[in-house]
């Protein structure tokens, strides 16, 4: 009969010290750390980078009197596939246990944390009356072993998880039958109308566009004013952060999906090392693609501590960031989770603020979005405009949506999730190229709240036009997808989010791409008239429509510029303010990207236009001194 090993009398710190794996000073430091933040000493030493992962688990095995195996082939040879297949792979990943085989003597369990609460819970649930034998393997070997047997399952769930859960919310079907029918009907009706009375058709079309413009302007104004009020109150105060009991902090998972970004990976590793959060409670998962050896090598070269895990996402289509995140989510240990891009520099107290926000939210919140901004704002015209845009978006518009209790389209990174709730709603849609925006709307529709926290993550603004257009076209395509997905469930959406949320969704998610698509047409009409002074257009602009159009042309553009000007004040980017006047040029770039997005929506809807990072000439700022 198998029996579990017994714990040695020597403490793990002493064992490590005796083996010469750590110094006395490191031990004392780790003990201090433990006193302050709680947690297991071995893991603290590993998270601080004082011992290697393999040394930790080997010593742990010795300490517990258990066998340790670090040979993957040997591990696999221990596994009885038929027995293993009886278990839910996601549960195994969550509990970090592999039931390898069952014999008359008992059950053989491979695990990385044999004496953890989680492990005991798993044993109680499945093998309460049975004798068990534990073998320690490293956490990375555990993942690799699970992948060996369940790769297809994980990939399938990462790709189709949302579809299986709620197919109506999946963007895998770009247009529903109803939408295709409606488009056909619209085109047919338009052709008929044009055939019989082209003038009234054009007038009606322009009128609809102009009314839409007016509503959009007013909506933006209203939301911005509501957002500006947030300047007057700090959602999370510095005192709240100071008074946080750090021993109670939960494990926080940080997902870092990367692809071909060897030049910037070091930035994030350094930033996360300096986070004001106990390192032993940080669970960092670097999600890499199989064909991306260079980023993996670059990450390894940084020698990150043991709380970092590199997970290779198996190749499958669509090759998107949300799919990688879904994959990483299976292995997340944290109660909360956030996503950072490789070049991100979050403010050090961001995770703490998120934890406080979740506590203050009282279980109603699924996510808190931190603000994003750029460290290379002064690099060129594009980065300046981008910074202005983001400052307005994250400092005024999103807080405004939050204050008005409207759905919030999440930003690409620095969104902090409650892991259980995230899984409950099906996580990210891998077919959506702005999976974050979609998730925000979906979460809101499911009755969860999405909030914003007063913390910033600094990123690298796109400094090249082509690269910017690629990135922006992907975002706009994602907005189109998100709108199509939720618009085909209009009744449900209305029921879930109410009239205000419903209108806000259409104006923000549907309206944003639409405005960019329409703008160049209206501008061309105006410029044509300005240059030629032709009377030919008069029939399409009866007086009332002319006034409305003029109002939008003059007041709408003014508002767009003026609202953007105000964005500089919160962050004191005063030197950027004159650039607000150049917004029309920036909007033209948006329109260019929108047409690319529209084209791709029909030709390659799930294609992930990769943004190249690490092209800035600016050095990233020092964390905490931003």
């Amino acid at each position, binding site marked *: 009969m198998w029996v579990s090993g017994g714990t040695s009398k020597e403490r793990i710190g002493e064992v490590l010290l005796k083996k010469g794996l750590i110094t006395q000073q490191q031990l004392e430091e780790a003990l201090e750390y433990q006193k302050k933040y709680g947690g297991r000493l071995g893991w603290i030493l590993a998270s601080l980078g004082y011992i290697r992962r393999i040394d930790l688990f080997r010593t742990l095995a010795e300490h517990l009197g258990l066998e340790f195996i670090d040979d993957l082939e040997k591990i696999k040879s221990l596994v009885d596939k038929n027995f293993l297949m009886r278990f839910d792979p996601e549960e195994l990943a969550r509990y970090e246990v592999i039931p390898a085989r069952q014999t008359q003597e008992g059950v053989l369990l491979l695990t990385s944390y044999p004496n953890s609460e989680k492990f005991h819970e798993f044993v109680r649930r499945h093998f309460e009356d049975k004798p068990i034998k534990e073998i320690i393997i490293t956490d990375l070997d555990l993942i690799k072993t699970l992948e060996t047997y369940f790769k297809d399952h994980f990939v399938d769930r990462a790709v189709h998880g949302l579809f299986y859960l709620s197919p109506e919310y999946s963007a895998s079907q770009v247009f529903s039958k109803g939408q295709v029918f409606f488009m056909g009907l619209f085109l047919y009706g338009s052709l008929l109308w044009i055939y019989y009375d082209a003038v009234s058709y054009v007038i009606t079309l322009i009128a609809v566009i102009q009314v839409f413009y007016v509503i959009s302007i007013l909506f933006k104004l209203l939301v911005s004013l509501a957002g500006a009020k947030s300047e007057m109150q700090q959602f999370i105060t510095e005192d709240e952060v100071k008074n946080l009991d750090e021993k109670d902090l939960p494990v926080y998972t940080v997902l870092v999906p990367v692809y071909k970004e060897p030049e910037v990976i070091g930035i994030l590793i350094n930033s996360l090392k300096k986070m004001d959060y106990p390192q032993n409670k940080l669970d960092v998962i670097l999600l890499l693609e199989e064909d991306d050896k260079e980023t993996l090598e670059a990450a390894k070269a940084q020698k990150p501590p043991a709380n970092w895990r590199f997970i290779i996402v198996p190749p499958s289509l669509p090759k998107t960031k949300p799919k990688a995140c879904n994959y990483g989510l299976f292995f997340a240990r944290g109660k909360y989770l956030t996503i950072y891009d490789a070049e991100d520099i979050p403010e050090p107290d961001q995770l703490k603020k998120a934890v406080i926000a979740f506590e203050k939210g009282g279980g109603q919140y699924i996510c808190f979005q931190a603000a994003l901004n750029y460290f290379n704002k002064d690099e060129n015209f594009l980065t300046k405009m981008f910074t202005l845009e983001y400052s307005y978006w994250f400092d005024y518009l999103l807080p405004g949506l939050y204050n008005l209790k409207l759905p919030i389209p999440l930003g690409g990174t620095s969104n902090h999730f409650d892991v259980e709730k995230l899984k409950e709603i099906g996580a990210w849609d891998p077919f959506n190229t702005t999976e974050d925006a979609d998730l925000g709307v979906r979460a809101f529709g499911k009755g969860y709240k999405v909030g914003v926290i007063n913390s910033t993550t600094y990123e690298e603004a796109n400094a090249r036009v082509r690269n910017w257009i690629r990135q922006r076209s992907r975002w706009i395509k994602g907005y189109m997808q998100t709108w199509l997905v939720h618009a085909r469930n209009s009744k449900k959406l209305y029921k879930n989010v109410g009239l205000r949320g419903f209108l806000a969704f259409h104006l923000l998610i549907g309206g944003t791409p639409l405005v960019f698509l329409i703008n160049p047409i209206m501008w061309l009409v105006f410029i044509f008239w300005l240059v030629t002074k032709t009377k030919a257009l008069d029939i399409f602009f009866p007086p009332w429509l002319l006034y409305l159009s003029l109002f939008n042309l003059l007041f709408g553009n003014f508002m767009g510029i003026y609202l953007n000007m105000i964005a500089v004040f919160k962050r004191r980017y*005063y030197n950027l303010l004159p650039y607000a006047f150049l917004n029309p040029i920036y909007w033209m770039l948006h329109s260019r990207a929108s047409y690319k997005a529209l084209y791709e929506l029909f030709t390659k809807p799930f294609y992930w236009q990769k943004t190249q990072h690490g092209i800035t000439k600016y050095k990233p700022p020092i964390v905490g001194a931003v």
Partner: protein
Amino acid sequence: MRPLLVLYLLFLCLIFLFYTASHTLYEAGYVHLNVLFYAEKVLLAKEGEPPRLENIGLVYPPLAFLPFWFVSDYLMASPFASAITLTLFFSFLLKRCLSPVYFIVVSLLLNPLTIFLAVYRFEVLSFYILLTLSVMFLILHMEMGYSIYLFVGGFLLGLCFFFDFRSVFLIPLFVLFIFFTTKQAGRDYTLALTMVKLTPIVFFVFIWLYLNWVFTGDPLTFIKSPYSFFKGRALGTDVLVAKGSILGSLKYSALQLFYLLPLILPYVVVLFKLKKYRVLYLFPLYLLYLSPITLMLFSIYFSYFFPSYYYSVLFLAFAVTFASSLNIRGSKALAVAFIVSFLASWVLPLYSKEENEKNFVKFLLTGRVKENIGEYIKVAKVLKDQGCEKTLLDDKTDFPVVVFSQNPKKFYLPYMYEYYSALSTPIAFADCILVNKNSQNIILDRFPTSKMGFLKGYMLVYSDETYNVFKRVR
């Protein structure tokens, strides 16, 4: 009581008060001609031939027409808009500090000159209130640093332009204020603040130039036109002397301030109190506080000023707002000043050169007023009784007739394409012609004999002290 309820009740009280005054005066045969002017322009814009927005002329600040567009009863338009403006103003004060300034706020609201502006000149009242708030929001931004205050303040200043073109005169003042308050904070900040504060007004000026250009072919029509806002002022000779002279303008301003002194006493008291409450940036604060005087000075310099007592309302609005926002309270001197000002506002306007305010206050005191619309109503009735289908007239002077006829389609008016054809061969177009004998107008210029009752092809069917009505001979 909940603040929203207080505001709602205040709004109802104000609208009741203003409309009652407006209607009672109408019953007594009096309406301020400005009201009829706006009403006619909006009538033409909505129901003219063709009904085009540019019929409002593009020469007067556009927001002056707005309530007449939405409120069909021209007697109600100004009271309605004024009640909204004053309620918003009151809500602003309510948020700051209400109790100590309660009585002064009431004294401002019940000041006969405020009521006069509310009943007839809502655009002037709105301009005063918006200007005051714009200034105060800038100060609040300086004190608290919230960008929303700067944004709102800048936008309100921009709106001021659409109520009164003279708002542009205050631009240098704001530039100086921002310069002096931010010179320590660096050039970028100064520039940013200036731009946010002034972009709306500059942008709106360009919008107006552009619209003038699009619709009239000349971006400066609103300045050059004979109907221009700037040319509509009846100027006294003493003001004309001060035109273009800094010294003359200063002297004339000082004289005006002297005349206004009893009315603006609270403003003066607050001026002296500022020092006690804001020592840190006193000089720039004074600059802003002097906005009403600066506006007066520039208006005199450019000859866009008409002496009136209702100008004191701007000073009072500044005094009330500064007193409540900067916590200048508990001052006996201030209380006395408000009482003196309130009492003076019932007396001084009786000696005003501005006939309308004089008539209005006189009416409030005696219940009697010199009627001014009877003749127009009578002529409109004559045109109707004579069965005139198309009447040729010049609405530069006779716009009230169009309003009382209530059907602009029955007139040939200068804005219409065929007006000048009708003027050259009236017999082919108009079956009636209305001639105003007492003022210079196009009809009289074209047909000088009409003054004596002779017009070829037409027969005189009505004549009184001011008007001759001719009907085409069949």
